[in-house]
């Protein structure tokens, strides 16, 4: 894939937005402004950013509780995301979801699922609806490698392959299911091989390289859209931060984290852009400034947001009238 400057900078900016957004979330969390769980995607930005390039506005996304990056890369408004972090009525889930349950109908972003593996069957169903209504759409389903141990993963892989459903399975293998390393939880650690056993094209991708991710996602999504059935991509990636803000990280070596940081998706890609003379210090500073301004605006929006009236507590439990 040849890279033009505009697209290269777009990819870099998207990754930068995710990283800076989450860094700001950490500050806000530490200050007590946002609460609950906060699962950070820092280190994994290339995956969501790259995959989203292969999707159209009509496609659907099902993500996990580590989904800030996916929502941002999909185009969910950062103001609505930040307001959700603050638990405000202007949040993308009106303060009912929080960090783990970001939803946005306008971008077909179906959450935000905090049950490991729980989103996979839903993704298959969204794809089934598309298949039965002859819509050439793709449902991109993100999940961590921890989900591979869940029954719902296997049930969905089987169903999707059996019915040739248009699902793009995006496994984000960051090597740890909370604190449990892959080789401590799986008898077969080659996840693409596992997926291939369901008669589904599957291959591993360098999840630290946004270009490799985009390239693989375009190939796979194109095939899915063309009616070739579900595809599985295993993105090999790494989260630098703890599982959540409560995690003391006793299960991994600090040196391992540092080694992965040498392959940082932003730093490596920035170097590549510089080498191609698409990025320099001035441009980088400008990008940083623009992203900071965007996040400042999102934080201001979230802070200024209103609280949902307590009288509305039980709204959205049942939907309105029968059709």
């Amino acid at each position, binding site marked *: 894939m040849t890279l033009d400057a505009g697209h290269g900078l777009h990819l870099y900016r998207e990754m930068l937005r995710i990283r800076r957004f989450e860094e700001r979330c950490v500050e806000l969390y530490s200050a007590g402004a946002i609460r609950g769980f906060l699962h950070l995607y820092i280190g994994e930005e290339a995956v969501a950013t790259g995959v989203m390039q292969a999707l159209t506005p009509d496609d*659907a996304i*099902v993500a996990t509780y580590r989904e800030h990056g996916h929502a941002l890369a999909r185009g969910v408004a950062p103001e609505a995301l930040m307001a959700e972090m603050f638990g405000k009525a202007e*949040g*993308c*889930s*009106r*303060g*009912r*979801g929080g960090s783990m*349950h970001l*939803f*946005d*109908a306008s971008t077909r972003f*179906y*959450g*935000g*699922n905090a*049950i490991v593996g*729980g989103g*996979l*069957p*839903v*993704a*298959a*169903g*969204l*794809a*089934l*609806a*598309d298949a*039965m*209504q002859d819509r050439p759409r793709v*449902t991109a389903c993100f999940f961590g490698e921890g989900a591979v141990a869940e*029954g*719902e993963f296997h*049930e*969905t892989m*089987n*169903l999707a392959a*059996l019915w040739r459903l248009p699902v793009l399975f995006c496994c984000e293998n960051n090597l740890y299911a909370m604190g449990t390393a892959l080789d401590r939880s799986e008898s077969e650690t080659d996840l693409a091989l596992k997926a291939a056993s369901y008669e589904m094209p599957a291959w591993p991708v360098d999840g630290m390289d946004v270009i490799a991710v985009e390239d693989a996602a375009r190939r796979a999504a194109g095939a899915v859209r063309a009616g070739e059935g579900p595809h599985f991509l295993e993105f090999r990636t790494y989260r630098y931060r703890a599982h959540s803000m409560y995690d003391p990280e006793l299960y991994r070596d600090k040196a391992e984290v540092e080694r992965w940081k040498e392959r940082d998706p932003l730093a490596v890609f920035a170097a590549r852009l510089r080498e191609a003379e698409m990025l320099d210090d001035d441009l980088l500073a400008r990008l940083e400034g623009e992203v900071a301004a965007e996040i400042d605006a999102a934080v201001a929006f979230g802070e200024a947001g209103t609280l949902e009236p307590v009288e509305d507590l039980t*709204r*959205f*439990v*049942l*939907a*309105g*009238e*029968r*059709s």
Partner: protein
Amino acid sequence: MIATTSATVKTTYRDAMRAALRDALERDDRVFLMGEDVGRYGGCFAVSKGLLEEFGPERVRDTPLSEAGFVGAGIGAALGGLRPIVEIMTVNFSLLALDQILNNAATLLHMSGGQFNVPLVIRMTTGAGRQLAAQHSHSLEGMYAHIPGIKVVAPATLEDARGMLWTALEDPNPVLVFEHGTLYNLEGEIDVNAGPVDIDHAAVRHPGEHVTLVTYGGSLGKCLAAADSLAHDDISAEVLDLRVLRPLDADAVLASVAHTHRAVVVEEGWRSGGLAAEVSARIMEGAFWDLDAPVARVCAAEVPIPYARHLEEAALPQVPAIVAAAREVVGAGG
């Protein structure tokens, strides 16, 4: 009032349910049925027999033995604009899909701040009485009725078997339909024009003066038999069929109790923490001063339902126990 001479036809609960499925599939292209053996086998209880031939494998869709997978797929398909009817063979198997039902179907609307509703119907058999032992006989609808975000209905009559499905499909929310396994062979006459019925209200199935028997589903017939028996002793029992277990039609319960001043709640679920406990609490909260006697309950014994016929019968609410409880609350015990 002009007398209508509406014709009736003989049918069974199974056939009425099948007619409802056929009607739904004919009326709305978005409707499809999926589940284990609903197609080629004709349905575990023969409810969907013949529908595969009529509507084809896309819309009468056999699934793998994969409850979490296909219930979740039903949720996704509902989000994607279809109107799925998902059949689960028995309520015990539905536990394999409980994550999808509780964590997704029931919560998505709220978690998304009102953006994503799930117009899904899930049908399943429930209940004991067929010597199927502990993993095919439980009555867990009360457990589902505990969950905000879903509706729970229990058709106990031919009219409700025929009519609840379409209304459930029109509902923008997930609706769970519990079909008691002993009802499929229930026979009777039904209006030839029988169609959709409400899924909001309880129904008085037998009017009475002295005591209200509150029940639903597979226990309705037993309560009607108990009412007949009580009539021989000049005890007039009102039989109230809840029909809808969530949201409960508490107004109907309270209205009946205000009239009879006594209540016996009858269900096949376990007594502890069950639906009968909920109904009893509602009566205490809303009709305490109307009561002439404490509310009584006739529930399943606190035991996994056993296989042997005599043990299974002993574990379930039976007519003599319902009669005895009613006599007790009207002060005619002994």
